[in-house]
């Protein structure tokens, strides 16, 4: 069963010439208990899509249902089964971490005692117990994001939306967040996650939808997407220019396609199936033939390659950013 379904979702901002088709006919289907990564650069329409699915924004056309409830007609039912962690931490800076969680829990219809217990559990789970009674103003960026995610989990939602959960986090906080997300998924939560980071989608998502200019331009598992740009390659740099022809002959025999040669850098690249085992074979044969090599590697295409191949432009700059004090 699909936990999230969207058909032909459209959202248009502005009027006339200034009109932006932020989301331009998006179809999605996320099976229960799986993770969909919505991958795209800044301005692709990820946030707008998530806001429509989370009932914060009304689609201009198309329809969507979450947990079987229509996001427009049955919005309140959707709200009672989802959690949303937006792109920016939506917590009250002037309340403490605990006060935030208790408030959201009460608004989620928990009684006073249950709300306090739920808050304690989440504070513990997200490593915020020590900071629980400090106002959020004093939290670091990573702590705010964790509190925001904890807020999204107040009602133990079956379906969770996370909009760029690690954007702006330092590498350590990012890895911590990945662990938290993996934990949630293990418990069976259906997750729709947006990201600008290819490795993040690769790491966390079962299936990926690549979005650009409000449209889905590719979808599949990370492996399927990688296949679209070709499979693995062996890359060899030989020591002597004279050895190139002999090396190419060996690769023709051992690998699975026509090698390409860059004589200037003495680099030979050849498609290969079978991974590491074939790499060992190649190394052995080179050794037997007395060909010295400077470098040899098995290269797998990254999702960066996928994005470049699909759109003709690179996705984004690499993750960076300092954690706020």
């Amino acid at each position, binding site marked *: 069963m699909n936990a999230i379904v969207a058909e032909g979702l459209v959202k248009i901002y502005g009027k006339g010439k200034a009109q932006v088709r932020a989301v331009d006919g998006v179809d999605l289907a996320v099976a229960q208990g799986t993770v969909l990564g919505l991958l795209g650069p800044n301005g692709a329409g990820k946030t707008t899509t998530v806001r429509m699915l*989370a009932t914060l924004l009304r689609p201009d056309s198309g329809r969507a249902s979450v947990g079987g409830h229509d996001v427009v007609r049955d919005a309140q039912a959707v709200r009672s089964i989802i959690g949303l962690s*937006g792109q920016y931490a939506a917590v009250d800076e002037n*309340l403490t971490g605990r*006060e935030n969680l208790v408030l959201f829990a009460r*608004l*989620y*219809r928990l009684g006073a005692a249950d709300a306090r217990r739920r808050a304690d559990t989440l504070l513990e789970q997200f490593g915020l117990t020590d900071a629980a009674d400090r106002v959020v103003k004093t939290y670091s960026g990573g702590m705010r994001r964790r509190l925001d995610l904890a807020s999204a989990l107040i009602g133990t939602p079956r379906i969770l939306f996370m909009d760029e959960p690690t954007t702006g986090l330092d590498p350590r906080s990012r890895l911590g967040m990945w662990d938290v997300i993996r934990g949630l998924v293990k418990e069976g939560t259906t997750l729709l996650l947006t990201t600008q980071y290819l490795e993040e989608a690769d790491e966390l998502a079962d299936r990926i939808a690549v979005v650009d200019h409000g449209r889905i331009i590719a979808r599949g598992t990370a492996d399927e997407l990688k296949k679209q740009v070709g499979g693995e390659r062996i890359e060899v740099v030989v020591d002597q220019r004279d050895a190139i022809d002999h090396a190419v002959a060996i690769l023709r025999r051992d690998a699975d396609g026509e090698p390409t040669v860059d004589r200037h850098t003495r680099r030979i690249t050849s498609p290969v199936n079978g991974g590491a085992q074939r790499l060992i074979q190649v190394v052995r044969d080179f050794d037997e033939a007395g060909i010295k090599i400077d470098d040899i590697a098995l290269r797998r295409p990254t999702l960066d390659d996928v994005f470049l191949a699909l759109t003709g432009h690179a996705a984004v700059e690499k993750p960076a950013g300092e954690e706020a004090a």
Partner: protein
Amino acid sequence: MTQALGDTLLIAGRNLRRVPRIPELAIFAILQSIMFVLLFAFVFGGAIPLPDGGSYREFLMPGIFAQNIAFASVITAIGMTDDLNKGILDRFRSLPMARSAVIAGRTVSDLVYNAGILVVLMASGFVVDWRVHTGIGEFLAGVGLLLLFAFAMAWIGVWLGLNVPTVEVGQQVSFLVVFPITFLSNAFVPPQTLPPLLRTFAEWNPVSALTAATRQLWGNPNPFAAPGFPAEHPIELTIIWTAVLILIFAPLAIRKYQSISR
């Protein structure tokens, strides 16, 4: 219905909890009013004779109360814009709570906040010899009118707060509205001293009505320029104004709040 009420109180409680966490806001509001009291009571007061005699300071204090109540809409607007821009409204809107509670809670918390400010101001009025010369019933009726008007102003604040892009713009816009209605009124000077056109405005102005109503209820000097409805029925005029403002701005605010999702 009980859910809406419960959620409203939760939101109001949250708003009030924030007040001591941002003490600057309340402290400056109070300091500013005390400055007004001192300025008018000791500096300008001597130059403003009341037509029928009486103590200027007793004349002044009801005006100061009304002015503060009017300015309170600025606080409401700031709170609303801040919640909108910081994404807190999104959080609330993604919860299965009563939707009306977010703005209703804001008007309730600001009512309590205003009542608190009023206590401080009345204490400072007492220090400069302002007194209520009637009974406890009239005193409470005057306070009731002030809070009723505060409730109307809170709805204006909510509507405004949802319509401006930033807290700063909201602050500017609300001052643009609130300054004329508080200063072109009978709050600080007897309306007789104003030129005719402004005098008419000052007579019908809701802040004047509120000021005159509390002066009348508390037996403080209450000079008016000419006989007529505003002079003879300030209490009724205040209630009419309050009703009109709520009837206009509550639906506008609610509609705006609902349309955030469009």
